[in-house]
């Protein structure tokens, strides 16, 4: 070894120098001082709380009840007229009178039946129309989702207003038609009554007891018919209410799922997340669709802290949240299951 050093002094010298140099390079140590800078986070925006408007109940129409009422008053007049007639004129044969009355009653029942059928058809048509409108509304919502929130809300409101207007118009038209029909029927009956009066004049006066008994029976019949009609009317109204409730529920579902969809669209993460990760997101929003707070709840095992963090971010990225199709449907607190 010494021989080697003597023989190659330069290389040995170089080796030593470099060794020392490397030693120096590696022996320089440094310490780092890190300090956490503290910063207050910006204050949360005060959010507006808007009262949710009460949903106005639909007006219902009791077309047939009033008709029955008119009928009743008319019948009373009939009785009085008949009384006078009895005094004035000789009694007519019972048979004739009975036949006529029977005819009249039949006509009336037939008319009531026809009215009910017409109304049912109308109801069905209206139901179909609403169904069509509902699907259209859903489609339109999906389309609007991509546009600015303001425009979206305005449009939705306008459309809804138009829909409501159209509905109102249809109802008004129907009401008018029903009233016209009532008028017509009343007049027809008056005419018939006059005819009958004339006929009655030719008829002989019969026993008062019989007539009174007959009148009483008829009255009972009419009362029963009226009760039935009332019941039918009530049922129809109830059905309409349920229909409307159901419709609103569907719209609400569509609204919430449109929010969930937008959040899902805005999900992205550089982290490795299990495809099974799932949490409930509870969002508090202002009427403009701006986020006031997000809570991540009821997570499953696969949902890591990073997943919760990123789910929250997806909500903020989805701001502003989609507006409801109808104003009344706006909810400040929205909760839905989130699984990206």
């Amino acid at each position: 070894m010494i021989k080697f050093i003597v023989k190659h002094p330069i290389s040995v010298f170089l080796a030593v120098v470099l060794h020392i140099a490397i030693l120096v390079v590696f022996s320089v140590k440094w310490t780092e001082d890190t300090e956490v800078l503290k910063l207050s986070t910006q204050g949360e925006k005060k959010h507006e709380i808007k009262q949710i408007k009460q949903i106005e109940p639909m007006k219902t129409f009791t077309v047939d009840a009033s008709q029955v009422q008119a009928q009743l008053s008319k019948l009373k007049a009939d009785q009085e007229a008949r009384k006078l007639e009895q005094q004035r004129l000789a009694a007519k044969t019972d048979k004739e009178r009975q036949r006529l009355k029977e005819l009249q009653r039949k006509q009336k029942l037939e008319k009531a039946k026809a009215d009910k059928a017409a109304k049912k058809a109308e109801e069905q048509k209206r139901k179909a129309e609403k169904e069509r409108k509902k699907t259209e509304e859903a489609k339109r919502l999906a389309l609007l989702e991509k546009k600015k929130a303001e425009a979206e809300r305005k449009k939705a409101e306008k459309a809804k207003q138009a829909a409501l207007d159209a509905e109102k118009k249809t109802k008004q038209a129907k009401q008018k038609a029903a009233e016209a029909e009532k008028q017509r029927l009343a007049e027809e009956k008056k005419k018939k009554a006059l005819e009958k009066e004339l006929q009655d004049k030719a008829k002989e006066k019969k026993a008062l007891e019989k007539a009174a008994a007959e009148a009483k029976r008829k009255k009972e019949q009419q009362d029963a018919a009226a009760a039935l009609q009332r019941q039918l009317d009530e049922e129809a109204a109830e059905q309409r209410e349920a229909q409307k409730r159901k419709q609103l529920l569907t719209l609400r579902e569509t609204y919430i799922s449109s929010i969930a969809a937008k959040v899902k669209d805005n999900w992205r993460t550089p982290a490795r997340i299990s495809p099974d990760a799932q949490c409930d997101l509870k969002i508090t929003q202002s009427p403009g669709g701006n986020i006031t707070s997000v809570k991540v709840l009821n997570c499953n095992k696969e949902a890591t802290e990073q997943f919760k963090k990123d789910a929250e971010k997806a909500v903020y990225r989805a701001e502003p949240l989609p507006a409801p199709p109808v104003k009344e449907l706006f909810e400040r607190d929205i909760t839905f299951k989130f699984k990206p």
Partner: protein
Amino acid sequence: MIPLNLQSRLINKIQPALFSLLLLFSLPAWSELTIEINEGYENALPIAIVPFGYEEQLKTGEENSSAKGKVVKAPVDLAAIISADLRRSGHFRPISADSMPAYPTDIEGIDFIDWRVLDIDNMLIGKVVDEGNGLYQIDMRFMDVLRKNQVMGKRWVHIPKDKLRQIAHQISDLIYEELTGIRGAFNTQIAYVTLRKVSGKRLYTLEIADSDGFNPQPILKSRMPIMSPSWSPDGSKLAYVSFESGRSNVVVQSLDGKYRKVIANFKGINGAPAWSPDGKKMALTLSKAGSADIYIMDLQTKKLRRLTRNWSIETEATWAANGQSLFFNSDRRGQPQVFQVFLDTGEIRRVTFEGKYNGNPEISPDGRYLAVVHGQGGFHIGLQDLYTNEFTVLTDTFLDESPTFSPNGEMILYAMNKNGKGVLAVVAIDGKASQTLKVKNGEVREPAWGPYLNK
């Protein structure tokens, strides 16, 4: 230079004392590893790393006025380093400085709406302050653009210029962890061997560099092969195979150069060093009993324990994450496959079954994944999930070998052959992001990713 005939004389009689003098040639300046990013994730997250501001600390009188109006830039572009780190991970897409609406250096200067429209969720702002005397202060603030608030803010003080890159890597680590939930591994080092031709002769150099290939520092140069660097768990030492005596020996050297010792120079081969997780033992391949077998050396007492006794080749041992078993390559079934030996019972079981050749096992830091060199019509890096036994081939480059996990287990660094030259490549463990690192005037091989530098 050491005459070759001297080396030949030394072949039979190894004199460890000589090692400290040997093989330190002076050489031209070191060229840095250059990185080529091949692939990233399709939906990498956009992020804004705003160029850092630069301030000179207020000085009194003339000095202050003379500095006025001068455009001074920070000595190191921290934002560029951080951007490159994040991009390399494959998970992020830092937007270019040109496309930024402004270069704020403090929170007051941020108009969040401007960044929101660029689809930016997070941005980094910061500044470098010249403290004088070659020291710097670095401030950084990581902002949430969505919620318009600060996610984190940090300050480093009294940082010398040559450590500024390291601070940048630390910032990258913080951002990576914040956004992925996984600790970043940017502020780490890699070791590798380069092979160059110097006046027609091979020159092997063992180098360490930052994980991005910068700051390469040679720690050993030799005319004879250098192989299989292995980091001590604390990152202060490297074990490797050196042929400086004319044959394979295992050497342990501290990075500061203060310590260097041949720990194995038995008859036959001395190879494949692997540090135990507690740093107290070293797995080795020795053939002193006739054929290559796995041994464990107690580094304190130098006592050896022989783990395998086959006439077949047993080599390339690596420790399980819990230190209670080792994985190794054995051709006892005819072709190399990975086996596992349990230290308490000595029980041995076969681990790999996929394909004809599975060698050079490496275990991920969490113990879940086994990376291997997978030979099946070519050599590629394969990954076996030890929980599910699912096997995937991660790479499709040429002659891939020497896989090594990043300390966070997210990436695998390996050696491959590109256009007839050895280069290093990095691939994400899901195979979705990759990049290559190469040296200008030589080949680079046998990489080993070092542990975390702090904590």
